[in-house]
């Protein structure tokens, strides 16, 4: 089972016993995705707390 990353549209493999709410990391662009639904498989970019490395 794969989902399409919402940021870079790469295919992201879902772990077999994947459940709603599970967090995945897109191997291509590093975005953290949250599984919103399993049928059909929908994912959204998970809100990531942004470490403050800014100046």
């Amino acid at each position, binding site marked *: 089972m794969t989902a399409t990353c919402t*940021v*870079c549209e*790469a295919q992201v493999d879902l772990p077999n016993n994947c459940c709603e709410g599970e967090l995945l990391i897109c191997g*291509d*662009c590093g975005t953290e995705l949250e599984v919103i639904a399993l049928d059909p498989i929908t994912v959204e970019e998970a809100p990531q707390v942004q*470490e403050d490395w800014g100046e």
Partner: protein
Amino acid sequence: MNRKMPVIIWGATGFTGGELLRIIARHPYMEVAGAVSRSKAGTPIGAIHPHLRFAYQDVNFISPEEGGKIDAGLVFLALPHKAAAETAKKRLSTGQKVVDLSADFRLRDHEQYKRWYETEHPCPELLEGAVYGLPELHRQEMASAKLISGVGCNATSAIFALLPLAKAGIIENARIECRVGSSEGGAEAKEGSSHSLRSRSLRVVSPFLHRHMAEVIQELALPEENISMTVTAVELVRGIQCIAHVTLNRTLREADIWKLFRAQWSNEPFVSVSPAKPAHFRIPDPRFVLGSNRVLTGFALAEDGRRVIAASAIDNLLKGAAGSAVQSANIMCGAEETAGLEMMPLYPA
């Protein structure tokens, strides 16, 4: 390749010469049969390159005359412009293969050479057979080449930032910015390079034009009027961060650009596309490739879908010079491209 192949380095006292000595000391198939330096012949290598003393114990620089007599199939030229071309001509005539780190064989058009380097090309007849020294662009031609050019370090960083967008023909214009380290200036003491004057500077050394632009125009087939190259010397010894402020000639989605970057770089042994998250790693920082032959490239797309920052990070002495030279030489000699070039980046450092 059981016995190592002897190679000779001409101009071995400079930073790129030292980097070639450093790489080849650990190369599985090559060994240094001679380190040529007119000015330092007879001097121990370790006296000029203290970090290499242990690896070249009791080895001295040799004169060009001695260098010319050594039987070696491959020579690296780390000589000043013009001297390189003349030496290349002689070496080629003896049947040796040449990787020339200077600018002398980078530009196919000797008129452009004359314009950017303000001197007549000493042997334009050799330009035809020379291959531009960036394996990611020319590895096929390199396999059968006799003469491979060097690469401008700033040009290299700009090419890695812009290639996917240039190939797709979607660049309307680009304001290319290179933030560079002091080792680009080479080993000789120059007025502005003393530590007190150079450290902590943000010195814009070229507002619009830099001679490395000629390679970007040639290799990416971009019209000169659509690009500019600004070079700022920053608080680094090694490293280039290229940030190109690109305006696209159409509106795109982020995923469209990811596809272009993925298609271009996913099979390259030395290139990685920076992740989108965490955000502070998205635009590549040369700190993460220091001391390696690796390239980091990445981009950010503005909300309007037309303004892009396309960026790259390299170590100017490695991927921007000696690393690409050894990578090209590997291909030219039929070895695997990554041989001797898999050092890991040094971080933090």
